[in-house]
């Protein structure tokens, strides 16, 4: 009798226990949800709320008044026009480059790819500054040809055409990488079949290759669009002096002049920018999905012989690199090596004073470098473990919550950084609850923005790594009795080490020179190196700005070279600058 009573009670109690006791994995995913929720979802939600509601009420008149204003309409029009045309330019250049590299027996391919992808790694504000200075008397390439600008002449790049040109060049590597990835999946036998059917190289490319890599072209175009519309560096460096307002520069300038009182209006503009970005991505994505490009079969790269076209093509390809890489960068170096802007670079005017100032004298620059290094290091330190944990749930435990977190992180990454900047100001303006300390105006709000912004960037190589790992390695550790944290530390992290290293490099290189987010968040107390160039240029210290720009390029170059040294341990394709 008493046995029976115990028998009946047992399931009951176990039921309650299982409700109370959270498994280790549950606790971890809750922590991840808090992380992404607080850093991405809540600030973006706050932004949307602030855009529509002022003082708790929905003021439709205010919204139509702002969105219908002549200047906003003009800026919106400029934004759309500039993004679309520069995306077209980037797509054409990027696709041609990918075909050249992927389909022909071009020589010195590795070096060329490194040079072609390099501009993508240089911070856009440095690129813009370098191009602006290409026509200065200190330019080592154009000055000897007499192609410099006389004082008082309007700079040709200070125009919407100039912005489109630079954005197109800047984003071409994005399309290149995407098309090259598609090209690698095209089975060689399809080409051989076309060749044996008698098709010449040009028809092969037009009729077989282009349709097959179409999705790659559009995927790259989508990336180029997002990158153009949110590229603060180029739009600000060229657009502000040229008086070509775009949404992004408008948000920046109005926030600078009016301060937090303009926040609600700026939230609305930021939201408009976000909507345009998402529409652009959706349309390009939809275009890329049209038509069936499913292929199967082994993809062995087939290289068409250039034959007698070898020299003309090589001249064109290397000439392009000289024009987009050597010309601006040498001018930047030239400007950094003279005492005052406008001086020609000769043995007499040569000076290292600017570098000396940037590195040792100018306290602001030194501190900005230090802050950037620290914040970037901390960001990497936090994001790598977080991405590994999130990747674990995304790849091995598909669930609704982890997918939502992934989407939120992708959104925070894809949206122009300035939107995250506005969202962070809104979210952190008031003191934090409980501790009652405000981090607004300190470096910690920049740190929060970095964590939000770069989670998706860190996640990508790590997801790629997870896809190559047999999940039974994790299950075997479960069998051995290891909890989730031990498994992540002892099994997953070591196995994923190469991908994690790649993720760390990507995040580090992107965050160290970051400008989009921090330009809104920097204050007298908190400076990062990214926006420094804009401030120096605005203050008229062009040569010092050039020196800082040179240092940033050197930093990036050395990071890239270091990463190449151990690239053989990395999964193929995670380092974009490696062929």
């Amino acid at each position, binding site marked *: 009798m008493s046995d029976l009573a115990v028998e009946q009670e047992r*399931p009951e109690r*176990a*039921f309650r226990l*299982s409700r109370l006791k959270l*498994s280790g994995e549950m606790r971890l995913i809750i922590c991840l949800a808090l992380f992404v929720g607080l850093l991405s979802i809540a600030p973006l939600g706050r932004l949307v709320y602030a855009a529509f509601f002022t003082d708790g009420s929905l003021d439709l008149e205010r919204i139509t008044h702002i969105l219908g204003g002549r200047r906003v309409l003009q800026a919106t029009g400029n934004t759309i026009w500039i993004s679309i045309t520069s995306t077209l330019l980037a797509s054409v250049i990027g696709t041609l480059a990918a075909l050249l590299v992927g389909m022909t027996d071009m020589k010195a391919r590795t070096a060329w790819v490194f040079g072609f992808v390099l501009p993508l790694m240089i911070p856009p504000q440095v690129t813009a500054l370098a191009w602006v200075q290409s026509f200065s008397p200190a330019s080592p390439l154009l000055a000897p040809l007499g192609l410099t600008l006389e004082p008082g002449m309007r700079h040709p790049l200070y125009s919407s055409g100039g912005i489109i040109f630079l954005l197109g060049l800047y984003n071409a590597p994005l399309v290149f990488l995407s098309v090259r990835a598609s090209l690698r999946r095209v089975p060689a036998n399809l080409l051989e079949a076309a060749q044996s059917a008698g098709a010449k190289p040009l028809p092969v490319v037009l009729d077989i290759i282009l349709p097959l890599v179409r999705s790659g072209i559009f995927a790259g175009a989508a990336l180029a669009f997002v990158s153009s519309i949110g590229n603060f560096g180029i739009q600000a460096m060229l657009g502000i002096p040229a008086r070509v307002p775009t949404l992004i520069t408008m948000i920046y300038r109005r926030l600078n002049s009016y301060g937090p009182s303009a926040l609600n209006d700026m939230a609305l503009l930021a939201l408009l920018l976000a909507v345009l970005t998402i529409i652009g991505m959706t349309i390009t994505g939809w275009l890329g999905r049209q038509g069936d490009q499913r292929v199967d079969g082994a993809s062995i790269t087939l290289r068409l012989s250039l034959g007698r076209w070898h020299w003309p093509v090589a001249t064109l390809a290397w000439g392009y690199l000289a024009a987009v890489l050597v010309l601006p960068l040498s001018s930047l170096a030239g400007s950094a090596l003279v005492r005052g802007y406008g001086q020609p670079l000769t043995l007499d005017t040569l000076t290292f004073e600017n570098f000396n100032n940037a590195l040792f004298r100018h306290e602001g620059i030194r501190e900005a470098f230090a802050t950037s290094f620290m914040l970037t290091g901390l960001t990497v330190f936090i994001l790598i473990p977080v991405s590994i944990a999130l990747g674990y749930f995304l790849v091995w435990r598909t669930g609704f919550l982890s997918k939502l977190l992934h989407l939120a992180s992708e959104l925070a990454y894809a949206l122009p950084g300035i939107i995250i900047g506005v969202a962070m100001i809104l979210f952190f303006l008031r003191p934090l609850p409980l501790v009652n300390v405000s981090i607004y105006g300190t470096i910690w709000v920049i740190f929060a923005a970095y964590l939000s912004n770069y989670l998706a960037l860190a996640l990508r190589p790590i997801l790629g790594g997870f896809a190559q790992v*047999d999940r*039974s*390695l994790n*299950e*075997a*550790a*479960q*069998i*051995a*009795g*290891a*909890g989730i944290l*031990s498994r992540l530390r*002892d*099994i997953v992290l*070591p*196995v994923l*080490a190469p991908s994690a290293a790649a993720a760390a490099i990507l995040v580090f290189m992107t965050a160290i020179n970051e400008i989009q987010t921090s330009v809104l968040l920097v204050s007298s107390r908190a400076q990062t190196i990214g926006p420094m160039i804009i401030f120096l240029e605005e203050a008229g210290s062009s040569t010092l700005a050039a020196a800082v720009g040179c240092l940033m390029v050197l930093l990036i170059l050395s990071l890239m070279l270091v990463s190449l040294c151990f690239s053989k341990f990395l999964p193929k394709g995670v380092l974009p600058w490696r062929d």
Partner: protein
Amino acid sequence: MGAIEITGIHKSFGKTEVLRDISLSIKSGEFVAVLGPSGCGKTTLLRTLAGFEKLDKGEIHVDGRCLSGRDIHLSPEERGIGVVFQNYALWPHMSVEQNVSYSLKVKGMSRTERTQRTKDVLELVGLDRLANRRPADLSGGQRQRVALARCLAMQAGVVLLDEPLANLDVHLRATLEEEFSRFHQRSGATMFYITHDQSEALALADRVAVMDKGRIAQFATPSKLYLEPSNEMVAGFIGEGKLMDVSNLTPSDDGMAHANLFGKPIRLRCASSASARSQARISFHPSDLSLATAKEEGIPATVKRLTYRGDHLRAEVAPVPAPDVSLTLNVAPPFSIEQGQHVSIALNDGWVLPDPQFA
């Protein structure tokens, strides 16, 4: 330790029912093989036992402890069940020794104790000299031993194995099969061995559970499966079994029965409960057929095809009364038979399947 009690478990992925009402009662220390065609749900059954999948219905108890049941689901970490994965799942960044001792480490065992135990285990499986190697530097057989050593180290009372030999070549298999038997004797653990290869299952296991489309078709000793299949699926699946209809079944009391096959009288084995009926289905294997001797009254047949198999000839013959039926038999040397020849064949043994209407 290690008695497994599986009662009425169900598991579906979306709309597909993968496990349907499976019940198995496995004694402590038994070697059980789960045999079935690919896709029948074997791996899923193993994963529910290990705790990787939750049950929709039913319960799993090990040594009286409920591991899975209504509102109860112990995570794999808490079960203490060993698993040998198909690819062995050795951690590539750890040495053999670290692989084996990891379960002891996460349990919080002291370093000295851990080292001693790992050393003992490695010696037992003959891997002590490879303790510092990485899995990548081991042969297939050595990897399997590391996987087994991991189970030994954690002193698992139950070890689950998911087709551990499926990816290996034939030569290696025989030696590795032996390894499992030895491991079983040494550890005394209950073995739950999944395979789609019946020779493996019949050779290794004390009892075999034949699975079909998410159900257990029969759970019995290898010889019982071979000689007394309980249904058509098992009869056809094990040992190239052949199904035939006979007429006028009349059981006698000694577990034997008389019937007519193609109009000729034959003697068969049957269950003691079998009743006389006009139609019955029987099963037999190629080795139960032979060429009739001159004295016997055999079934007339035509030889359709001959295949040379080294120590015997495999003959496919068609009975004259039913030319569409194909029977297979093994002919011992000397080979005095050729294609198209008329022969007379005898059925020496057969088993009357239980009448499905009454089963």
